[in-house]
């Protein structure tokens, strides 16, 4: 008597997106958003013109400019440091 080889039944992989994990991810995303907001604002302001950076606050620069970054590089490379 021969028996057929038991064929492995492919088990359905359990999704890691359980309700608990979804809630946890949402909380983590919200907290990260709050925590990164000051850095994002600093980065966005560094790409604004000096006039725009002191007007009413907004996240996206209206006129993108790299002037502030150029000033930093120039100050760092100039012999007087200013």
């Amino acid at each position, binding site marked *: 008597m021969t028996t057929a080889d038991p064929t492995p039944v492919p088990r359905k992989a359990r999704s890691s997106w359980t309700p608990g994990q979804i809630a946890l*991810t949402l909380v*983590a995303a919200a*907290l*990260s958003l709050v*925590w*990164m907001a000051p*850095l994002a604002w*600093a980065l966005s302001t560094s790409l604004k013109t000096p006039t725009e950076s002191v*007007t*009413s606050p907004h996240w996206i620069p209206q006129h993108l400019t790299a002037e502030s970054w150029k000033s930093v590089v120039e100050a760092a490379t100039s012999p007087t440091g200013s």
Partner: protein
Amino acid sequence: MTTTLAPATGLRPRAATATESARLRWGRRFQHGGWFVAPFFVLYGLFVVVPVVRGLYLSLTDANISGDHTRFIGLDNYREAFRDHLVWNSLWHSVQFTLYVVPCIVVVALLMALIAHHIAHLKWLWRLCFFAPFLLPSAVVGNLWWWLFQPTNGMVNHVLGIDTPWLTQRSTAMIAVVVATLWWTVGFSFLLYLAALQNIPHHLYEAAELDGAHAFQRMLHITVPNLRTITGLVIALQVLASLQVFDQAVVMYQFGPGPEESTRTFVQYTLEQGFTSYRVGYASAISFILFLIIAAVALGRMWLLRLREEDAR
């Protein structure tokens, strides 16, 4: 005649030999280990012991910043410090800051660590987000939050839809420093908590799950007791650091004492006495008072820890 005392005294040569060999052993040990630790002791002596002793000496004199005509005045600086209401005021501000910031850091760091530990996706991203501000220098943090807290063009008021003058009114001035400090330093405590969470044996949770404990019970009866030691450490480190609060507050208030002198901290007052009033002797005395307070807190924490260990035995 060549007689020796050795046979008469009996044990003496053996004792002498033992002393000699102990000395040799110590010498050999010093040869191996001593030279390795010598650079540390030299640097420690130069940069810690010498300045501390010099500071103690200065605190007993009326030294000014020029160093001329320094007189020994005994404990006069300490007597004056205890009568100086600005010393008490600035000490209260440092204590107030500590009382606000430490519980906030403990709660937020624990919450962040629990999220980062239990989350299944993009673990690295959450860790990076929570830890990133800790990498910034204090001057950057102070300036950044000074801009964010501006009443008319600051992002905080814009997002919250209010027009609170955070940095210019007494009731919110310290809160602004606390918020900036929480945002900046929580990453360090978060890492400590995360490491502690990863060290809790997983089989404890499995066993509890088999026993039917739900998530909150597992948290209450496994996670919290296992985090007790690290919480003690986090609180101690934060208290010691918060009592020395200086740079972020000073940068946010442009080296001023804040509205109605509400954010002048103890270290800032020391700096003012030393480098604005040029009273180096008095500033040294105030520094030593802060040193004694911090040492007392550290010793108190050690004593409590020892008591708890003895209770556990």
